[in-house]
């Protein structure tokens, strides 16, 4: 499968083209966001309902990672 490069929190990763972004973050154990009390959170519903997987993609905040396929050069930022 063709590999592409994406950046997550400033680090470059090689991932399979068309992988789901929420799946990539979960596999790499990178929390998508922090809850209002500071808990790390990752995807839950996987289908665009719960909003737990939201991240910043190419400077656009609050994008649902579970509805996004990774594409070459994608820049992803999660809440620290």
């Amino acid at each position, binding site marked *: 499968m063709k590999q592409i490069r994406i950046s997550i929190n400033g680090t470059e990763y090689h991932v399979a083209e068309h992988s789901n972004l929420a799946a990539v973050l*979960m596999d790499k154990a990178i929390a998508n966001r922090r809850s209002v009390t500071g808990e790390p959170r*990752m995807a839950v519903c996987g*289908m665009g309902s719960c909003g737990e997987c939201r991240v910043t993609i190419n400077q656009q905040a609050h994008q649902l990672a579970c509805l996004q396929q990774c594409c070459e050069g994608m820049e992803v930022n999660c809440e620290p």
Partner: protein
Amino acid sequence: MSLNVVIVGAGPAGLAAAWSASQSNANVTLIDQADQAGGQIWRGGQGYAPKRYQHLFFQHTALQYRKQTHVLGASEQQLYLATPQGPQQLRYDRLILANGARELFLPFPGWTLPKVVGVGGLQALVKGGLPIVGKRVVIAGSGPLLIAVASQLKQRGAIIKAVVEQAPIAQLLRFGRSLVGHPTKMLQAAQSAQALANTPFYVNTWIIAAEGEGEVQQVQLSNGQRIECDYLACSWGLIANTELAQQLGCRLEQGFVVVDRSQHTSRDQVYAVGELTGIGGEDKAVIEGQIAGFVATGNYQAASQLAQQQAQAWQFSQQLAASFALRPELRQLAQANTIVCRCEDVTFGQLQSQPSWRSAKLQTRCGMGICQGRVCGGATQYLFGWSQDSVRFPIHSVSVADLVMESV
């Protein structure tokens, strides 16, 4: 001028409706929020769908398929959309709602830990490329999805540590017998059972807690067992995505859109199909979708030929609801400090003193976050019997830019 038929949702029900509506000369538009058609059941590309519907996955067909498009709201003849190209309005003469369902999540200690996911959620992530080979997975909750997903994940190389079903054995056996009239479902069940021959399957059992540092590492069951795992997939059945139907003023009963035999809702020119009218899976979705597509385009004869299959699908959906009814003990799982509203981190203790959903929203911000109650609404309905108020525009959270229409 040809009739504008708009279908919301490109899962099995929506695709079936698009197919049957396309047999006429109507102008058919199919709208879906995902980046690929198929919904949940046919997720992963056209290869998962029956041949008849595969061409509908592509943009270049006669039908207009609009992916990555959210419906923000609807009025009598107009839909308001957030598209990758910005906000748009779309006029409809007939509207077919095929919004599908989401999983019901019930709060228990540790359920907000990373890698505690939905059952369909984990299935979706794995289809999206999440490596599962050699991973230890516990699948818990209720419903036929547990077995189906467990067998799929096992075939992909996951180690299924346990399947944990809350329903008592007598109910499950009754459900098993009810499959006799549905040969394809019998076959699916038999294949899943065979795939899971050596997998521990606990009935009458449920999750008490998930534990771990930074992510789930162990789960605790009601039978006293503790099981180590990399993923806990759990959900307690499905709830219909009725938000758009509610905003249109369609009549609902017990969480589902009320329809007649033509799939017509209580609102003129608005139809509802698939999980929206009752949880019944793929067969029910496809039959209802086809009927609505035919009826909406005036092909009543084709629709009437499906009446018997429609009745069978409906009967199956009733059996499903009865067999996997949730037990009252599940209301006792959340502790005072267990989060119920994940968006706003509102705990069970904060909600216990609230008299209603509205009061909880005003006093605690429960249900006010990005999911707008899609997760905690189902949970609080089960825990406290709260029903939600009216659904307001926009039904999905959007950026301000998506609300500023060009015409304004």
